């Protein structure tokens, strides 16, 4: 057991996964991840090549190039870096390069903000990446290793990005149990170049990425769709195997907390889910049957799993720390399309504002009261303060 920040937890996960090429560019609040990796490599504690690229666009381009030569790759970024990288994020997704990336979730400017919000990552949700969101430093560490297993699984072969909230997760030190190298090696076999969709080999020359006409594009895109269909099972399998290997409960698609008999279920995501669980416990003590479902995997979207977990609830309160302007809370809207009863969508924590235990408690009560009044399918911006004072 050590004490480490969420960022360093990721770095140690990358070491345990034996990533071979790391290309990254600094950005607050992600920088600690790559600083620690650079330190581990330079001190000889980790065998990898570090490419000190000049931008996030180049970071992903370099990962794509290295992955195409059979190397296990890693990068990390945040908000603006991810937005700047976006073209290559799609390139990696559509090209099926099983790269792993950590995203420290931060608000996109303007105005400048370094605090947490999930819109940065969710804006990449159609890029062909498997997307996960962590709830603790421990989970960030474990998910790093799990991400490679999922990405490189021959049934999947898609890149994986996972998020961790700026500061509340990235910079908060927690107790951390490191995955033993032996355990990691048993869980994660070396990358098999023969399984890679794209492998640059002069002895078997192929051209990757030249023009593809409308006659075949749909078929290749459909292969990606099918991979995402299989990914759900692979994610659950990886979570189960890593649970057994580490003795720690790992979550794959969702985390279900006391929701089986709940009349109100909060759907949460990311670091604030810890506070949400506390609120659930308090409500239960007060006699209100509350529960939480945490979205661990965003793509493939665990719609059926969420629907199944909240089936018996009178009210479902979906808390979004993100927003799609002109549409609504992103997770709220996506989850709603799977639910038979309309949920309530709470937009909270935008720009890094705290979502406290008390907020979650009040949200649950508000959702229950709304449901009793028959007011469902409503979006509420939680805790608005006005501009004066």
């Amino acid at each position, binding site marked *: 057991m050590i004490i480490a920040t969420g960022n360093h937890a990721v770095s140690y996960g990358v070491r345990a996964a034996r990533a*071979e*090429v790391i*290309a990254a560019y600094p950005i607050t609040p992600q920088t600690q991840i790559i600083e620690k990796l650079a330190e581990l490599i330079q001190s000889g504690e980790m065998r*990898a*090549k570090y*490419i*000190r*690229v*000049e*931008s996030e*666009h*180049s*970071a992903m*381009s*370099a*990962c*794509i*190039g*290295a*992955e*195409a*030569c*059979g*190397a296990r*790759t890693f990068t990390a970024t945040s908000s603006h870096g991810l937005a700047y990288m976006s*073209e*290559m994020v799609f*390139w990696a997704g559509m090209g099926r390069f099983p790269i792993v990336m950590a995203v420290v979730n931060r608000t996109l400017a303007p105005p400048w903000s370094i605090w947490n919000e999930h819109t940065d990552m969710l804006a990449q949700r159609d890029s062909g990446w498997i997307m996960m969101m962590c709830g603790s430093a421990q989970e960030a560490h474990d998910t790093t290793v799990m991400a490679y297993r999922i990405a490189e699984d021959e049934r999947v072969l898609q890149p994986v990005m996972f998020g961790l909230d700026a500061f509340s997760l990235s910079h908060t030190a927690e107790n951390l149990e490191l995955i033993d190298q032996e355990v990691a090696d048993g869980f994660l076999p070396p990358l098999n*170049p023969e399984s890679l969709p*794209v492998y*640059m*080999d*002069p002895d078997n*020359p*192929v*051209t*990757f*990425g*030249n*023009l*593809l*006409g409308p006659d*075949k594009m749909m078929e290749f895109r459909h292969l990606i769709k099918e991979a995402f269909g299989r990914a759900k099972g692979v994610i659950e399998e990886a979570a189960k195997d890593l649970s057994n290997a580490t003795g720690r409960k790992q979550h794959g698609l969702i985390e279900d907390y006391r929701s089986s008999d709940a009349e109100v279920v909060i759907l949460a995501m990311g670091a604030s889910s810890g506070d949400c669980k506390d609120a659930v416990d308090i409500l239960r003590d007060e006699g209100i049957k509350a529960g939480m479902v945490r979205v661990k995997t965003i793509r493939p979207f665990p719609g059926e799993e969420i629907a199944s977990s909240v089936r018996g609830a009178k009210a479902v309160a979906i808390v979004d720390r993100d927003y799609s302007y002109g549409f609504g809370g992103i997770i709220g809207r996506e989850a709603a399309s799977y639910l038979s009863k309309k949920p309530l969508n709470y937009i909270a924590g935008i720009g890094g504002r705290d979502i406290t235990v008390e907020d979650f408690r009040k949200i649950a009560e508000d959702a229950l009261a709304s449901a009793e009044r028959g007011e469902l399918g409503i979006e509420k911006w939680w805790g608005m303060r006005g501009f004066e004072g």
Partner: protein
Amino acid sequence: MITLKDLPVEEYYLPGNAACSGCASALSTRIALKILGPKTIVVIPACCASVIQGYYPKSPSKVPIMNTAFAATAATASGIVAGLEVKGRKGITVMGWAGDGGTADIGIQALSGAAERNEDFIYICYDNEAYMNTGTQSSSATPRGAKTTTAVMGKGERKKDVPEIMIAHDLPYVATACAAYPLDFAEKVSKAMKLKGLKYIHLLSPCPPGWRFPTEKMVEVGKAAVMTGAWILYEWEGGKYTLTGPSKGLIDKAKRRPLKEYLAMQGRFSKIPEAEVEALQRDVDSKWEAMKKKLGA
């Protein structure tokens, strides 16, 4: 010196590709790959060379090609070099092959980054002096006076000097070349192949449709670019400039043909005002004066 006899008969870039008739880039790809041979991985961004490959499921290339996004040639190549290194895959040459837009404009950041890190690959910019793949829009490598679809009266600004920018990165090797002199180009590719680090070659590629001249004149136009002094063939290695090919004999202005002969061969300079021609000639002359100083001549 590389002679015609040194070039293998085997083609690594096969006929029946989608290049325009008389394409200097297609010719130069052919030549470069004859030197580099089959143990090569080529990185190509969005440019004419991406279109030349034609449609899936076929490719004219007998060496692997990694197509990448417009700005990403040098970064993708950096990743390939790193991947080969960590996997212990030796004896493979990595070449970036990008147009002037992908080099001088959108790709210069990644190129500069890779150059500063001195990544071990060859970067060749085939410079047809505009965005030809999309139909002749101006790039920063378009010369002053040339008409493009975004400069219908002729571009007002001078051509960006990318080889000099690359020299400022203190690379192991920088050279200019011209598609009209394939053996001079081959020699430079061969030299670059033997050196470690980032080697940069800037290849002038006369473009029949974009520069508006008949396809059969591609070599003649390219030679005129060199013989008028508009394009100087040189190498830079270890801080030292060396003129190559016909440029060696052109230090003396009297030996250079008047620039207007080169301009007159191309529709993109049609109806260019006489004052503009004189200004362009002065640009050429001052470039040579600067080169003389660099040569210590």
